[in-house]
């Protein structure tokens, strides 16, 4: 298929048909008014050819909808500049080699799930020997000395640890995002790092299933890693970014 990058539209069964599936609930009693409101809402979102596939009474004056429609929106993909952590992929052996040669010591990494968040599995899968989906974790690299602080760690404790072990890198995990609590936690940590005057010396990286690189940059972090991140991605980024940093 020849796709026009300047005019990317969803594809159902015809090029450019704009087919999209939606589902949502409206706070309206089940009935024709709810149906019409749903249709108009979709129109207001720029949909055409709206099919109300189902509407169902889910009680307490709420109605649930499954809808198919054709969006009039499109995207100019040729104008998109992708932001993503930059690195080329090297093997574990190569990274260990590079670090030995260029640093002549281990890179010190402090990892923690901060704030009230108690999820450790994601962070562990980046740090622990075992790693993630057959990709070994940072502890398995000669290149890194890893301090895994676990979960529910306060920013103050993180800074304490960073000083204690003279860390090069902080790896922060955030999994709970309800009511944007992760933004709060991440901002607190960054503010403290600046207040304590340690920000500049560090690479500060955040990860979690709902984290994007874009968000990380917005919050003043050096990189953000999302769902499905492999430890080797993180390892590559750390080593290559530190080299860039030190060569500046």
């Amino acid at each position, binding site marked *: 298929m020849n796709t026009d990058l300047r005019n990317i539209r969803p*594809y159902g*069964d015809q090029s450019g048909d704009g087919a999209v599936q939606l589902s949502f609930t409206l706070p309206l009693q089940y009935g024709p008014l709810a149906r019409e409101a749903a249709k108009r809402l979709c129109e207001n979102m720029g949909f055409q050819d709206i099919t*109300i*596939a*189902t509407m169902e009474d889910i009680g307490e004056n709420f109605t649930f909808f*499954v809808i*198919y429609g054709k969006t009039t929106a499109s995207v100019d993909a040729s104008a998109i500049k992708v932001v993503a952590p930059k690195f080329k992929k090297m093997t574990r052996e190569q990274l260990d080699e590079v670090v030995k040669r260029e640093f002549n010591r281990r890179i010190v990494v402090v990892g923690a799930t901060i704030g009230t968040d108690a999820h450790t599995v994601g962070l562990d899968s980046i740090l622990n020997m075992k790693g993630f989906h057959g990709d070994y974790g940072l502890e398995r690299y000669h290149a890194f000395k890893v301090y895994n602080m676990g979960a529910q760690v306060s920013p103050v404790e993180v800074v304490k640890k960073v000083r204690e072990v003279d860390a090069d890198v902080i790896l922060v995990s955030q999994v709970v995002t309800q009511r944007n609590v992760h933004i709060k936690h991440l901002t607190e940590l960054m503010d403290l790092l600046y207040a304590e005057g340690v920000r500049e010396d560090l690479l500060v990286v955040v990860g979690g299933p709902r984290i994007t690189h874009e968000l990380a940059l917005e919050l003043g972090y050096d990189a953000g890693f999302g769902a499905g991140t492999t430890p080797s991605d993180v390892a590559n980024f750390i080593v290559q970014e530190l080299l860039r940093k030190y060569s500046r």
Partner: protein
Amino acid sequence: MDRPKIRLDKKLVDYARQLAKEITDEVQQMIEQHSTVSVERTVLRLFGVDGVTDDQIPLVNVVVDKIKEWEMLQDGVAKPFVNAMVVLDKSAQQIAEAIVDGLDLRSLPRASNEKINMKMLELSRQSLETISKKSQQREDLLKELGDPPQPYKYLIVATGNIYEDVVQARAAVQQGADIIAIIRSTAQSLLDYVPYGATTEGYGGTYATQENFRIMRQALDDMARKVKRYVRQVNYASGLCMPEIAALAAMEGLDILLNDAMYGILFRDINMIRTFTDQYISRLLCAFSGITINTGEDNYLTTADAIEKAHTVTASQLVNEQFALKAGMKSRLMGLGHAFEIDPDVEDGLLYEIAHAMLARELFADYPIKYMPPTKFMTGNIFKGYAVETLYNLVSVMTGQSIQLLGILTEAIHTPYLHDRYLALINANYVFNNARHLGREVIFKKDGFIEKRANQVLREAVDLLEHTRDVGLLRAIEEGQFADISRARDGGKGLEGVFRKSESYVNPIQDELEKRLGVKK
């Protein structure tokens, strides 16, 4: 594949088959006495006639219509047509074109019977040779790439545009499809000709044309080599052009054809004699070229209740089996159909589904039976539909079905989108893998609900077959015994295309097929 067993009443099974044989024996006599315009067009196609007039009318239609007009049809098209080839020393295609341009066969001298017969034999052998080669190529590719495990994952594409179909089919294969079917445009089955060339405008499906077959075959073979897995191609030999489509499919190397002895009668209101005659020739072709047929018993359950009328599925399967045997088909080509169509809100519906699936599996133990997904009770709630499909896939892998038409979560909404098919595969891949050997762990209680229910359906099928034997199949259909639909023997579409063969009727292709398949003589 390991699967649970249930005990069926062995005597009843044999009796049911005997009844179906008697029923079809009677119909077969009638079939022998008739031919149809589509059968005659098939002969011409296999002789090598192709192409359309400026008005998009296939040359084979023009020729057969002319011969009919000239009142020469009762002898079959072969003799007058080949006579023209012999006396004018032209190819079949040239003769057909000449007829379009006004050549009147009545005006031609008659070559000797011997010459005509020799030429007919030569043409028939040549064409069967071509088909044989094609089917050998398929066999070879299958051996080379390897056959995927059963249940095969069967997916439909139906964009209306063959080029979009290719895109969708390629993606589906990449996602794990083992079989790709192109659904036909609505009402193609009522066209008394096969459309021509690559088509881009269909409704609810894409026209079945020889060129579309070829385009899709190419795409699937490409993908098969890429994913290193043989991919089967399906189309429909139903409707008014059953034998023609079977011929085109054989020439283009399709693997499976929807083909049912009664579907056209019941669901497309096509004349009975037309359908019975056409199905016989189409099945001779399938049998010869190794094309698996898929019957359409699932359709009964979309109009009638799936619990009440479960036995009509069984009865029809047995009838389809006997008709197929008469056309020289081996059981390994008989993809008899059944379906998971019980209202999901029925208490213990799943137990009924298991019983029905086990019955079909036990009755046709080594046949590539085809299991059809929930459609009638699919609604716009795509999530609920997806849950229903999960249990459908589970029943299939547990009971060891062969060909699994994957359910589509948007069944009640539109013909499938690209990702609807992807989601269907996700579901099937998950369930088939996660429950891979469930069938060898599970035993159904002796004399439990499932075993009892399966035997009950069998008994009801026998009752229906007994009645059908007594009154005759034609009468039974008139009574509305199948799918609650009643059709008159002298009604329905395409009746005008049926004719009684004369004493001197000749169909060299049919003769050759019957000979090679050992069906006659």
